[in-house]
């Protein structure tokens, strides 16, 4: 298969933005702080599902056309766990963007900070998961692209390269569209792209000890074991556009959900019970 001919000399410099998210299937009211933000420490943390698909997209481009894959995660030091996973799956480099100034960022501030980090790597292709399961907003990817003035392709299902262009297949809700996209470009990737490949055994051995300075008493490890660490200053992010200061949205009110009780009838799981229920629904013209 001579696919390289359709790529280009030197391959493509790919950046993948990944996020560690609370496993929202396990959220309880106790995991919320008084200001309405989430207490992530109280929840199991996982590699956001569609960010895994985004990493797979980048690895596939590298595999077919050559180049490099850099994974970036913004978050607390604990997010290094998913950067190690990314390295074990095949990413060449991993960077943690972590800074107190980033705390409380909404999607606008988050996309600003990530756009500053991404710009540092001067990528040809940027991949993000379509959305993260903690917010489900799907906003960060398109907003990073806007800030970088990159082409943005959402709901990516497949990609091929053609020189300085990508041929992207995307879901448009009412169908499927094929686009020719000039690089540099950002893509938000859905689960339809395909699952993230498993870890490579030799990479597991190598990268399980990878650490960012913040996990290692402030000291950067040497060579392959190093996860890079970037602060807002390192990426040139202005403080008033980060964190709470850079977030136009505020959480005004949080209420725990109280499920509405109304008329409720328990029906026995027997032939008679079910038949009586069906009879009642026929009688009031709900069915029939």
């Amino acid at each position: 298969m001579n696919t390289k001919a359709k790529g280009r000399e030197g391959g493509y410099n790919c950046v993948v933005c990944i996020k560690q998210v609370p496993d929202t299937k396990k959220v309880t009211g106790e995991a919320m702080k008084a200001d309405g933000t989430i207490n992530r420490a109280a929840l199991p943390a996982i590699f956001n599902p569609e960010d895994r698909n985004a990493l797979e997209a980048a690895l596939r481009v590298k595999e077919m056309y050559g180049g490099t894959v850099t994974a970036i995660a913004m978050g607390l030091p604990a997010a290094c766990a998913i950067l190690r996973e990314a390295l074990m799956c095949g990413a060449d480099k991993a960077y943690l963007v972590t800074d107190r100034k980033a705390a409380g960022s909404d999607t606008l501030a988050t996309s600003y900070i990530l756009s500053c980090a991404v710009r540092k790597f001067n990528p040809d292709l940027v991949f993000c998961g379509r959305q993260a399961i903690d917010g489900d907003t799907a906003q960060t990817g398109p907003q990073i692209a806007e800030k970088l003035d990159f082409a943005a392709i959402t709901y990516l299902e497949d990609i091929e390269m053609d020189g300085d262009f990508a041929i992207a297949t995307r879901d448009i809700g009412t169908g499927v569209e094929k686009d020719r996209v000039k690089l540099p470009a950002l893509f938000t990737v859905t689960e339809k792209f395909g699952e993230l490949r498993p870890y490579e055994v030799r990479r597991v051995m190598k990268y399980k000890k990878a650490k960012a300075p913040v996990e290692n008493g402030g000291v950067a490890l040497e060579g392959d074991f190093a996860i890079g660490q970037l602060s807002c200053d390192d990426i040139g992010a202005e403080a008033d556009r980060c964190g709470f200061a850079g977030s136009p949205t505020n959480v005004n009110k949080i209420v725990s959900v109280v499920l509405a009780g109304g008329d409720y009838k328990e029906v026995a799981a027997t032939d008679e019970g079910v038949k009586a229920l069906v009879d009642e629904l026929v009688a009031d013209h709900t069915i029939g």
Partner: protein
Amino acid sequence: MAIDRTKGEVWVFAEQEEGKLSDVPRELLGKGRELADRLGVRLGAVLIGGEGVAGSLAAQLFEAGADVLHVIEDARLEVFRGKAYRHAFVELIKECSPQIVIFGATHMGRDLAPAVASALKCGLTADCTDLQIGDYTDKKCTCEDGSAKVVKDVLLQIRPAFGGNIIATIVNPYNWPQMATVREGVMKPLDPQPGRTGEVVRHESHLDGVEIPVEVLEIVRRHSSINLKGARIIVAGGAGVGSKENFKLLHDLADALGGAVGGSRAAVDLGYCEHERQIGQTGVTVRPALFISCGISGAVQHLAGMQDSAKIIAINTDKDAPIFKVAHYGIVGDLNVVIPKMIKAIKQKG
């Protein structure tokens, strides 16, 4: 002179494809009408497309509640391309200063709205389940007498958050316009008012000299046979169904009732049913005459998409499942046992 932002219009993005409106703009105009009336301002619909797109759609949008139609027609806007639409929309907002802009949380809306918000550095709340007007007390900002600052008549953007155990009200008090997306089916359209008309205002696309880095090569439309919103009866399954094979039982029950089959997010994630069947905050919102819930525990994000159904029957082995709290009839039992009994009882009636 500073513009009085409280006089700004309420806008709805009137998404169209191939010159056709989907249901979403009409639904959003229903809610937009309520917000605009509450604020005492005009309700605008924003229509972007190729030459002549406003022709047949203007009347529909006025009949659905719009007072004014803002139109941008340009051959370069014939097919949706994020950057071109974003650029035109951002210029339009700068020109007219609406105070609220609402988008459908469709694929197009979720592509366009974040980019517009990013360019304007304003907030955007995704997948709102309700929108209201109210006052916001900013505790971080105090007036000279020491009391907290109150911002009048802001858009309260209400959405379930963090797994759905919480309903959050989000506000964007300062960086206007206030922007939100709303899922299909969440808001109710007004009854069309035939003959109702309004003002058409045409605007420039401002695309000259703007490089658009995307060329659309091909579009293959999918004509889905799944129509949950239009179904009178819905049988929906969750993780408790246990397997894709067991889901066939739900289809059998739906067939017996002449209904449609839906699923919770868990069922979709587990591959038991197609994505198009997902009911809930991030799927479709439905209000059928009868909703039969099978093996769905009832995460609030799911309940947000079905709790307004006229009658709800819940079948679940867990007697403490939250779904029973919104159900009218509860059957604590194994759906693999209960559904066949139900099908049998229905067929006996027929």
